[in-house]
């Protein structure tokens, strides 16, 4: 399987605070990988560095053989990496359709506005937003906005999709829908990185798990194994719980 | 020795310049409004001092806070009536609004006072200090001292009084401040009025040294801009540093390219700063 995205010893510093420290990881095409970690672990910084919003302080980021560390966000988007935002960022006064069409027009490389509109319709249908196509994006519910983010990122024709806390604020049924969409997306050949801090969501959909803790990657492997990993349990639930857990096993 | 004289000339205006900019910086930092009216209010303060001196013989340096008090009231009124409704609206709207207000005040002053320059002629004239070969005009020293005093008073108010802390709180997080029981609208109005107070006082001090006319309002506004960008928005130390820096820059600029170009030099500097380092020399956020 091809290596799609490679981070080599990537660090990102914010005037004294090391948000990412020496992170090295490779994503392969077709994977659905989960990225978890407690709040403040550096997950969004990770996404920001990969998508070009932030420059890495050191280390290299390679995508499809091309160095993209520090590249402008719009160029990264056009290279094939799409991302969603934790706090959803639509174009509020444009219609839902226009939002998606814009993504198709620029990052997706579609040549004309008409074609972009048609592509938008397809993505809207996929995400279940056809009914809201002509309403302003600002009038959508939270779940609707999350689906809009998803539709926009798909319209970018990505090879790698970074979903940043796409499930935050959704109820159980909405989460089910979202995960179903995600697995369908992966089925189309798009590599997905799912950033979450809910373990159970990630355990259902991801075959591989990365764990960030205080900026460092402390685990990288098959989901089942990672979830049993001592360090991971400590990071999430604290050392006392980990000790108790261990004691109850013996 | 000429270099030192020029330096001293510039430094001697520093406190006064800081006073010119402090109010402007406060309003910009707290209300996020660029008050185009600021320059005209400075001129108004100057006229108030001029007439107070002419008819009552009041010393402009002592009159400064009084001029400030009058512009304080005016500012409070203006804020409650005209500016409060547009708080939080796009930059374009607030800029055009204060521009309109400024147009009105400028025209009113032109109609009332005519465009001729007025200057306060202190009798007996204050004269100069002499330190070796260096000449230090006393009126500038007084103006800078009083100006600095007012700026420090403002800083103290912001730091040590409840009102001041309310202003800082509103600046940092308006909603959180409201939740803590702070009357946000009143706080905005007072912050604005404090800004106009500083403008009026600065005007009174300026009138003691320079001729004033409604025509000069734009120039003072320009200085306030430059000082804010030079020293960094939203901090008193920034305004002080910016004030002294501008004084010195103008002084040397006047020496090299002539005093009539002083403002343009400042603007050029402003442009360069905006492009290169918009957060200013001290580059701090938050008001302290």
């Amino acid at each position, binding site marked *: 399987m091809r290596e799609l995205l490679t981070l080599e010893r990537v660090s990102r510093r914010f005037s004294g605070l090391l948000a990412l420290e020496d992170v090295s990881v490779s994503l392969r095409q077709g994977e659905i990988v989960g990225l978890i970690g407690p709040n403040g672990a550096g997950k969004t910084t990770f996404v920001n560095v990969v998508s070009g919003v932030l420059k890495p302080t050191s280390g290299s980021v390679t995508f499809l053989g091309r160095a993209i560390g520090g590249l402008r966000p719009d160029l990264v988007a*056009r290279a094939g990496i799409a991302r969603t935002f934790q706090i959803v960022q639509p174009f509020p006064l444009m219609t839902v359709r226009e939002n998606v069409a*814009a993504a198709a027009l620029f990052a*997706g490389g579609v040549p004309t506005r008409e074609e972009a509109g048609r592509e938008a319709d397809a993505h809207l249908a996929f995400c279940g937003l056809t009914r809201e196509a002509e309403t302003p994006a600002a009038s959508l519910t939270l779940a609707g906005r999350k689906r809009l983010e998803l539709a926009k990122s798909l319209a970018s024709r990505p090879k790698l999709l970074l979903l940043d806390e796409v499930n935050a604020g959704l109820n159980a049924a909405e989460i089910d829908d979202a995960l179903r969409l995600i697995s369908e997306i992966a089925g189309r050949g798009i590599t997905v990185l799912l950033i979450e801090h809910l373990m159970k969501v990630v355990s259902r959909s991801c075959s591989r798990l990365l764990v960030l803790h205080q900026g460092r990657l402390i685990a990288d492997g098959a989901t089942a194994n990672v979830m049993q990993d001592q360090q991971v349990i400590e990071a999430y639930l604290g050392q006392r719980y980990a000790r108790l857990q261990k004691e109850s096993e013996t | 020795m000429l270099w030192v004289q020029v330096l001293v000339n510039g430094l001697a205006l520093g406190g006064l310049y800081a006073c010119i900019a402090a109010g402007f910086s406060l309003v910009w930092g707290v209300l996020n409004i660029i008050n185009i009216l600021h320059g005209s209010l400075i001129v108004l303060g100057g006229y108030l001092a001029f007439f107070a001196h002419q008819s009552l013989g009041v010393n402009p340096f002592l009159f400064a806070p009084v001029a400030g008090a009058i512009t304080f009231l005016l500012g409070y009124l203006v804020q409650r009536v005209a500016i409060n409704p547009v708080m939080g609206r796009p*930059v374009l*709207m607030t800029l*055009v609004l204060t521009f309109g207000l400024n147009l009105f005040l400028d025209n009113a002053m032109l*109609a009332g006072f005519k465009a001729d320059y007025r200057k306060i002629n202190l009798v007996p004239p204050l004269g100069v200090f002499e330190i070796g070969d260096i000449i230090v005009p006393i009126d500038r020293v007084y103006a800078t001292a009083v100006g600095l005093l007012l700026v420090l008073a403002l800083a103290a108010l912001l730091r040590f009084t409840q009102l001041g802390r309310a202003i800082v709180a509103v600046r940092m997080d308006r909603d959180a401040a409201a939740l803590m029981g702070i009357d946000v609208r009143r706080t905005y109005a007072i912050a604005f009025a404090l800004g106009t107070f500083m403008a009026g006082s600065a005007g009174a001090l300026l009138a003691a040294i320079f001729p004033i006319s409604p025509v000069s309002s734009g120039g003072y506004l320009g200085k306030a801009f430059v000082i804010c960008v030079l020293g960094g928005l939203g901090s008193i130390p920034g305004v002080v540093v910016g004030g002294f820096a501008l004084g010195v820059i103008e002084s040397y600029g006047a020496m090299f390219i002539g005093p009539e170009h002083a403002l343009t030099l400042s603007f050029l500097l402003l442009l360069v700063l905006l492009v290169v380092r918009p957060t200013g020399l001290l580059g701090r956020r938050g008001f302290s």
Partner: protein
Amino acid sequence: MLVRIGIGLAFVTAAAALLAFGDNYVLRLATTVAMYATLAVAWNIVGGFSGYPSFATAAFFGLGAYAGGLASVAGAPIVGAWIGAGLITAVFATLLGFAILHLRGHYFAIGSLVVADVLREVTNSWVSLTGGGMGLNVPLLGGSTGTQAKIFFVAMALVAVVAVLVSLWIDRSRLGVALRCIEQNEDAAQVIGVDTRRAKVAGFAVSSLLTGIAGAIYASWVSYIDPSDVFDISLSVKPIIMALLGGVGTLAGPVIGAFAFLGLEELIWRNSLEFHAGFLGILVVLLVLFLPGGLGALRGKGAVSWILGRFGRSRK
């Protein structure tokens, strides 16, 4: 579509009537309206479409005026001088754009405002080239005053029409979508692949091209310009007020606003010369205070349509 053609025909008819029957005063007024309509439409491309509060109009206008004027003095044919002036202004705007378009909000507004001042001073000081404060005499176009008035009216009106067409074209193009995305959410725009810097600079350049040409025509029209005249801040502010009056970000808005504003100004000016600026100030304040509130109003209905709407409602 039919409405648009109808309006277009109405304008053409009115213009023809003006040319046939209008006296010089009316023609001059009409030329001024066309000029400001151009400035307002040009501003709208930056301030309305992309939401960047530009106060650079005076800088571009003045630059165009002097470039055109100097070219004419050097012997260039008049239309060539105008277009050349526009291009020079566009080049300047492109460079300036790269320098200041990364600024947002107030910082951008101030930066753009200050440029005019700097340019004015430079022009003032460069006496050997521009004549400095003594002004520049631009060669007169031959012919009677009446013919000249007609020619300049046609020229300005044509530029205004071109400006509207350009504005329409941008609105329909990819650039238009890019600018609108930038206005709504610049960070999100970048993430979906918009090269925001290039889009903003492009809008800035087009806007300045139109403004510069208007300035150059103005210079030929009045045949005497000086720095404080063509770099005056009101040239930056009035187009904005016009756009606010007619509807920022819309296509017809700036034009409607230009008509409305200049109509109002004529009224005020006729009544009070001394307090002219003051009344304008009050008008501006009222405009901003009573414009339909919220960010939505900034792109969409202007005061004129709001006022007309109120009249409509009261009839029912």
